[in-house]
């Protein structure tokens, strides 16, 4: 808290001067518009940024998805209607990606459909376990917290390079294995092991974030409820299932939604680590979009935009359902 205040003081110093200039302006606005309209004044900068750099790009993407050519500016692009969507959905049999014109899109979708549940489940389980351990009365709690949070700070590129460096044929892991007398495995060459490591590395990199949130949630559970449970002869396991989990539910929900959204958006780490390989075993949706719309030449903005919109709609529906479920759960 005190450092929080110090921090605020430091930040305050940086912006003190501009703030002094802003104050009369804002006061004038308040005079002009009245208090009732002031919230809009406060919202305005953020809203402008959101509209300009988040919503507008989405709308441009919508336009891209119904237009063709590799031109950047919408006015240079001829309309092609639903052609991009038609291309994406050009399949003989939706269950078999290799019958599709854009088989990679469907493979990426399929991979995401496996990757996201597996990764999110692993992530939440491990983060929860870690948070519970860190919430106990243990020595060096701050140190361990630091350890688990540390990877969150590394850039995705660094994370991927680090693990690539460790997992490569002549990497540290194989060094360890061969010095233990076992046969080294070329981890990133086999679809299954590569998939495992994709999950592992992304969990490794992000779980600290969720651990901290869950930890905060755990700490918000009143101590005396646990003491009451102790007096009620509850075993540790029952305390966990009947007290901790239910009381953590709201936080778990936030964590779940965030984890799913970010899992679906996984890109940087895997792009560097596996490049989506072997074959297309770890290519996820965002990488597909990136490859089609950005990494390839000529860039097929239209197809990429169409794919990304489908992804966005899917996420939106998912979150909507989640919210609905959680709300109904809270009402009873």
């Amino acid at each position: 808290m005190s450092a929080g205040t110090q921090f605020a003081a430091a930040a305050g110093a940086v912006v003190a001067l501009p703030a002094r200039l802003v104050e009369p302006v804002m006061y004038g606005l308040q005079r002009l518009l009245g208090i009732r309209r002031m919230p809009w004044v406060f919202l305005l900068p953020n809203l402008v940024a959101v509209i300009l750099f988040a919503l507008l790009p989405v709308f441009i993407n919508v336009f891209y998805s119904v237009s063709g050519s590799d031109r950047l500016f919408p006015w240079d692009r001829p309309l092609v209607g639903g052609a991009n969507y038609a291309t994406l959905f050009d399949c003989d049999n939706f269950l078999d990606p290799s019958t599709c014109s854009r088989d990679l899109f469907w493979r990426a979708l399929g991979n995401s459909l496996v990757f996201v549940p597996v990764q999110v489940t692993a992530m939440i389980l491990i983060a929860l376990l870690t948070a519970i351990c860190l919430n106990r009365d243990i020595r060096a709690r701050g140190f361990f917290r630091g350890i688990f949070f540390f990877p969150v700070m590394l850039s995705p590129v660094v994370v991927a390079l680090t693990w690539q460096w460790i997992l490569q044929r002549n990497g540290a892991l194989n060094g360890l294995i061969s010095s233990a007398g076992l046969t080294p495995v070329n981890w990133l060459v086999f679809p299954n092991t590569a998939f495992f490591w994709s999950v592992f590395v992304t969990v490794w990199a992000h779980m600290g974030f969720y651990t901290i949130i869950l930890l905060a949630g755990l700490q918000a559970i009143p101590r005396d409820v646990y003491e009451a449970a102790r007096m009620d002869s509850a075993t540790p396991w029952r305390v966990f299932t009947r007290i901790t989990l239910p009381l953590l539910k709201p936080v778990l929900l936030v964590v779940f939604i965030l984890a799913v959204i970010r899992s679906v958006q996984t890109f940087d780490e895997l792009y560097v680590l596996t490049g989506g390989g072997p074959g297309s075993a770890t290519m996820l949706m965002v990488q597909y979009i990136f490859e089609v719309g950005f990494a390839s030449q000529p860039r097929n903005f239209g197809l990429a935009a169409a794919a990304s919109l489908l992804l966005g709609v899917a996420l939106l529906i998912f979150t909507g359902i989640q919210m609905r479920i959680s709300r109904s759960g809270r009402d009873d």
Partner: protein
Amino acid sequence: QEIRLLAGDTGTGGALFEEMAKSFEEANPGVDVVVEEVSYQTIVESLPVQLEAGEGPDIAIITDLGGLSRFYLDITDYVDADYFEKEWGQTLAWLRGGRDTDAIFGMPTTLTVNGAYVNLTLFEQAGVPVPEEGATWQEWAEATRQVAEATGTDFAMEMDRSGHRFASLAISYGAELVDEEGKPVVDDGLRAAIEQFVEWHENGTMPMDLWGAVGGSTHRELFSDFLNANVVLYFGGSWTLAQMDTEVGDLFDWAVMPAPCGPSSCTVMPGGGAMTAFAHTEHPELAGKLINHFAQPENLDFYISNEVEIPSAASQIANGVEYPDASERTKEALATFTAQIPKMADAAYRFQGWRYQRAMMNALTTRISQVLNNELDVDGALERIEEDVNLAIEAAEGQS
């Protein structure tokens, strides 16, 4: 008046151009040539988008010669067109990206050549004779396999995960890749090359690490394997020479081999950079003149010899260039690389100058990796390569 020139940050490129630009600035008072070194990734990935948006430098040294064609400034009027035609007739066509025009869009700076590096020491230890010039890919595979077996080396051959590298093999096997109309060609040559390639991966001649383990269009290389003598033959590019020279040291003897032959030809892919001005520049004349300045023979020699690169100008290739600072082995290697230039197949040149070359190369890497991982069979891969490229063309032309 400021002219911005963008150069990749490899080698000493930027600094050399800055030096050469000095005399130009003296001759044209008030002109300021700003040379910026950027990462190679910027040149490949973000420069095109910038150009789309009408942004970017006045001049850049680019490697996607055909793909960016429509952003180039026609500098015919500012340069000695005949001289350019004479020196770079072939490569100038690449810059036109298949357009039917005689315009001059820039000056090819360096030439790069794909090629195979071979660990001679391993050959010596295995007691296997090094295949002569004119040996086929299969002979090379056989020989390196023997060496690998005899010396306990991990792998016989490796190739960068790059469509450009693979194209060398493919064209040697008779693949056309692109026809005169600029349409993709998927023929038996390509099929044979892919089948051959898959076989090598299946029988362990090549490791899965590169082509097998990576997906999509990602570029990947494992040159460290060669440096550590984990592989007998490494198929990479001429630009790795400097690294070879410093890092291998006297660990083993190595050499660059002449292009292995396929059933059709003994070709490798050419490549290289070109200096082009862009149409959006505010000082077209200055930009053109600056390029012309760099194109003067003394500047060319200065640049090539300091950069230790393969020259691109016909006269330089013919006369040779002095590399005062390079080691013996490097000079030897450069000579071998240069010697490949005349042997290169037409298809290689055509492919290099094709606007949709990158689409084809991406399709090659993506699809071949899928074949290696049993996601596709060879027929399926061929079908898809054609489909991918056609879709790219359609999309680019806005009619999909």
